[in-house]
């Protein structure tokens, strides 16, 4: 299996892709997922992160099969 990585809204445009896949051995935390998936781009300070569609922080562990998402502050409603 793999780790599915998603980017939304302005982060998607900034990173240049909406979705990439990582091999599970490439990253053990959300922060490492970001580094691997963006080729070490700096992460904007207000970036929000989710693992399997729940908000987490950058230190949250990731495992095989996880879906990891990065996005800017939400602006619905």
């Amino acid at each position, binding site marked *: 299996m793999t780790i599915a990585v998603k980017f939304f*809204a302005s982060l998607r445009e900034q990173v240049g892709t909406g979705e990439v896949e990582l091999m599970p051995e490439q990253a053990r935390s959300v922060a490492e997922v970001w580094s691997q998936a963006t080729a070490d781009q700096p992460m904007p300070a207000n970036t929000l992160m989710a693992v399997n569609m729940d908000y987490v922080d950058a230190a949250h562990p990731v495992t095989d099969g996880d879906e990891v998402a990065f*996005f800017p502050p939400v602006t*619905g409603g």
Partner: protein
Amino acid sequence: MRIEVRDNLFDPFAEVSRYQQQHLPAGKYGATAVFVGSMRDFNQGDAVQQMTLEHYPGMTENYLRKIGEEAASRWDIIDSLIIHRVGEIRPDEPIVVVAVWSAHRGDAFEASRYLMEELKARAPFWKKETLHNGSRWVEKNTPAS
């Protein structure tokens, strides 16, 4: 409780009325509080021609449901409805409708306000505005008051 994310135009008051007729027990609710958020044709001093609403399918619905369940556990409510638009939106069109039915007005008012504030704070939607000279992402929501 119904949660919906829609990519087409809807009539918020007709939706609330229809949901009420189909799902609410007649004579049991004394209070219905409804909030509709609509697209304005201006923001931060600029004319806005169109807006695109992006969301995170799956997580959006999860969080709307979570927020709805939180409201139901905090207040004495009978039922609730949330419909949120995504995709391309024009000025004056509705973006979101939230409705809460309760026996009493305090619960209906407070729960509807809670749903809107939590939706704006936590549900993964993002607005991109089209201006006459390009487009921009809305960077953050306006505060509650």
